[in-house]
């Protein structure tokens, strides 16, 4: 039962992104702005920071692949990005103390990194013609705002859960 906890949580985060976008009231800012929920990335980073790097990277590969197959239908983009970000995050955490504020700050940084990376790839393969200013104002800032709100609400319970779980394992 305990072993199933982490995968189940990952699935919940995976599905929650799609649910969030779908259930958001569409007359509220939905058409002008693009805000992308990056809950799964936040989850992966927290697992990397409070758990182990291996877990972060393995979940990154699996759920990155799921993300590509189910949502975007362009294979490889997230499957490559998620584990790489988890790896870099683990490296960076050697310089910092493990603290909730640091974790949240890192999450915000890596969400921007991921947004830029995906924007770059979309430009490269010609699936978008969005200009940089448009990307910055209509996409990046709303995305950061939404995820900051999510962190404000969910980061503490998520951290508590993960810490408790990894303590028990030891």
């Amino acid at each position: 039962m305990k072993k199933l906890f982490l995968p189940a949580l990952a699935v919940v985060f995976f599905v929650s992104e799609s649910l969030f976008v779908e259930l958001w009231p569409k007359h509220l800012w939905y058409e002008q702005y693009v805000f992308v929920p990056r809950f799964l990335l936040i989850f992966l980073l927290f697992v990397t920071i409070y758990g182990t790097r291996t877990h972060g990277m393995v979940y990154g590969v699996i759920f990155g692949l799921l993300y590509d197959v189910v949502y975007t239908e362009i294979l490889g983009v997230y499957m490559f990005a998620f584990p790489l970000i988890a790896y870099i995050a683990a490296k960076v955490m050697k310089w910092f103390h493990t603290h909730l504020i640091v974790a949240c700050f890192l999450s915000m940084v890596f969400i921007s990194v991921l947004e830029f990376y995906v924007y770059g790839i979309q430009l490269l393969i010609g699936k978008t013609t969005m200009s940089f200013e448009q990307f910055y104002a209509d996409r990046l800032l709303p995305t950061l705002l939404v995820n900051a709100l999510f962190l404000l609400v969910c980061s503490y319970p998520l951290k508590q859960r993960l810490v408790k779980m990894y303590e028990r394992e030891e």
Partner: protein
Amino acid sequence: MPQFFLNKRLILLLVSIIFLVALIGFSLKERKELTWSEQFVKDTTGFVQFLFHQPAQLVAGFFENVQDIKNTYKENKLLKARLEEYVMLEAEVQTLKKENEELRAVLDKKESLRDFIPIEATVIGRNPDRWQETVIINKGEQQGIKKDMAVITPSGLIGKIQHASQFTSTVQLLSAIDRQNRISAYVQGKDGSVFGLIEGYDDKRQALLLKQVPFDAKIEKKQLVLTSGLGGIFPKGLPIGEVEEVEPDEYGLTKMAYVKPAANFYDVDEVIVVKRKIDAVQEGETK
């Protein structure tokens, strides 16, 4: 020793970048069908999404209902006014339908591009990174859905099936940028219809672009744009939207019209996938 490890990681990184490029190349290729493994993954996650979707929808629906109640009085007034018009229209439609049937019987023409079999489906997911606007619905090949079928809501056309797997399928909305996303359409004019192609979407104006319209064609604002059924897969007469503005296109040889879509692409919960009756008949014959 550390040098060696560093190298190994570097090599791994390079190999995965090559892998990434290969995979992206593979998925950008025009594919008729998804691989069976992709279909399997999609259907499995589709099932999980469906499980989560129902309770979440209920909760969200409750809040929406509260908001709806606020508007009820105003809407009720408006609808009552419309009701009288509706009765008139209904009567007219009935007589026209009957007449049409009789005339068809006279001509001995049984099939029409207009007839279709509706397949109702529920939206169970959406692409969260909205680079491509797609939604996932809970019906697939097993229910008779195929690639490129039209997807509508009661108010009008919203997109087409991008890929169908066994029990779920992905719908590409009309607002997605895609050069291949052409739809043969016509404008219902006063004297005869004007044909054109829906090619692309203007994000800023939130309007579809109707191109390749002959230069001397007479199009006015507020005229209806419908699918023509000549493209091969869509049936005839699905409403797309109404003309907002007409201007000459970049070379000045043809005209281009901005079409305001009739359906809201963003606010979709229940959709209808449209299967053309002519195709169904032909399928039956070949079997």
